[in-house]
């Protein structure tokens, strides 16, 4: 039973990757947006590339994992194709897990490209490949579940983008992407500590620079796992309620 559910989830993820992810608008959000941001900051301060790399890789995951994820379910609900998935012999958890995995794979791939580019072209070092890739995957999981929650919470695609950006853009400035959280005014700390991107940036930073800004990497891992779990089950709960309406 569990094996069938996992297989079903993977088929959903593969279908989503083929249909929605590797499309120009998505690639532009996943690659172009972080590149433009990177160039802007690198041109301003060429010596700070190493410090910026972790934040830029983290936002590439954030945008890649959420850009399609946040609209996929709302789009499929409008076209009635989501009903096709609901009719399949899979639990709601398996269906949503498939949706999440699509975002995770795309987020991971995009950030890996960004990581390789940073190493080759900008000379960014890294300390532990396995853990670094693991931190990219974990971050992709968190942001993909965030995208899923957005997608099940709204009725229109436009609303999905608005809601996703309501969280994504402030996160760029509050979570240590460009300015370390420790350097932010203290009144912003509670907000920064409440957002998952903070832990993602800090974790990736540890495997690039060898030091962390706010919490030990183990704490970041635990926080990101908790975020993923909560966001995933919240998505399941919200979707169940939406279907019953």
């Amino acid at each position, binding site marked *: 039973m569990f094996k069938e559910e996992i297989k079903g989830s993977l*088929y959903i993820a593969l279908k989503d990757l083929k249909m929605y992810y590797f499309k120009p608008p998505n690639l532009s959000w996943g690659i172009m947006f972080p590149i433009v941001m990177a160039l802007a900051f690198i041109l301003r301060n060429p010596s700070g590339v190493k410090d910026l790399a972790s934040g830029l890789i983290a936002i590439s995951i954030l945008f890649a994992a959420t850009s399609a994820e946040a609209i996929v379910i709302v789009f499929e609900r409008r*076209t009635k*194709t989501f*009903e096709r998935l609901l009719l*399949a012999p899979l639990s709601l958890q398996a269906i949503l897990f498939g949706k999440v995995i699509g975002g995770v794979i795309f987020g991971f791939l995009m950030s890996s490209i960004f990581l390789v580019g940073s190493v080759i072209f900008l000379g960014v070092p890294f300390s532990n490949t396995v853990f670094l890739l693991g931190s990219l995957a974990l971050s992709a999981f968190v942001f993909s579940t965030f995208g899923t929650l957005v997608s099940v919470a709204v009725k229109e695609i436009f609303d999905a983008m608005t809601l996703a950006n309501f969280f994504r853009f402030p996160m760029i400035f509050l979570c240590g992407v460009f300015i370390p959280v420790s350097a932010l005014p203290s009144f912003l700390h509670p907000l920064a500590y409440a957002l998952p991107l903070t832990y993602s940036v800090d974790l990736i930073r540890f495997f690039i620079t060898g030091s962390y800004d706010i919490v030990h990497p183990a704490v970041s891992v635990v926080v990101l796992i908790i975020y993923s779990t909560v966001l995933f089950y919240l998505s399941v709960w919200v979707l169940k309620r939406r*279907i*019953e309406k």
Partner: protein
Amino acid sequence: MGSDSIIEVSDLTKFYRDFSAVNHINFKVNGGEIFGFLGPNGAGKTTTIKILTGLIQPTEGTATIQGKDIRTHIVEIKKIIGVVTEDSNLYDELSVFDNLRFVGQLYGVSQGNRDKRIGELLKRFDLESKREAKFATLSKGMKRKVTIAAALIHSPQVVFLDEPTTGLDVLSARILRAMIKELKALGVTVFLTTHYIEEAAQLCDRVAILVNGTIKTVDTPGNLIATTNSKNLEEAFIEITGLKEEIMLVDKEGKR
């Protein structure tokens, strides 16, 4: 009826806040029959299908399909049922073959069986030439055929068809009716909702008539015609649903 019933519905009720879409309905569907579920718009037909296929939960009551309770064994039930919803809900971007393959994957049909089954279905539904065509490019009739083929990919024992011929031209509708008869010949139980009473008269072994979420009667078309002293099933339907006065009023208004 009784031991050979494949669907058993008892006291099934669905409330949306204060509105009762389905209200304590009871009926049984025999294995291998075409069971018509008729009623005016808003009678609760689609809600009943949604409950029986696990899309929504009942507020009260229960139903079993092949002895399995929809509240507790819905995943197992979904393996033995095929569903054709009112809308052709396949993926526009995917080809006919890719759509069928994806649905086969969701139902756990092994790769060897899947490809063989897709080949059979494409042949049976005369879709071989459309194998690589994108779903979006097909005509409405073709889309319905592919949607029905998708519902049959895992060789289900029960097929739910919700308004399958609505919006189709005469020829496509005829072809679909022939397919429904073919399903029965293959031993598949068909649960059919339709607005076309003549279609139900042609196809169904028994029909249930639903009005405002309540079942008025369940019987064979022949018995319904006889007990209501009607000329045909449409007249019997009008009599049973109480639409006679409304229709007379519409006719009168139309003559003015």
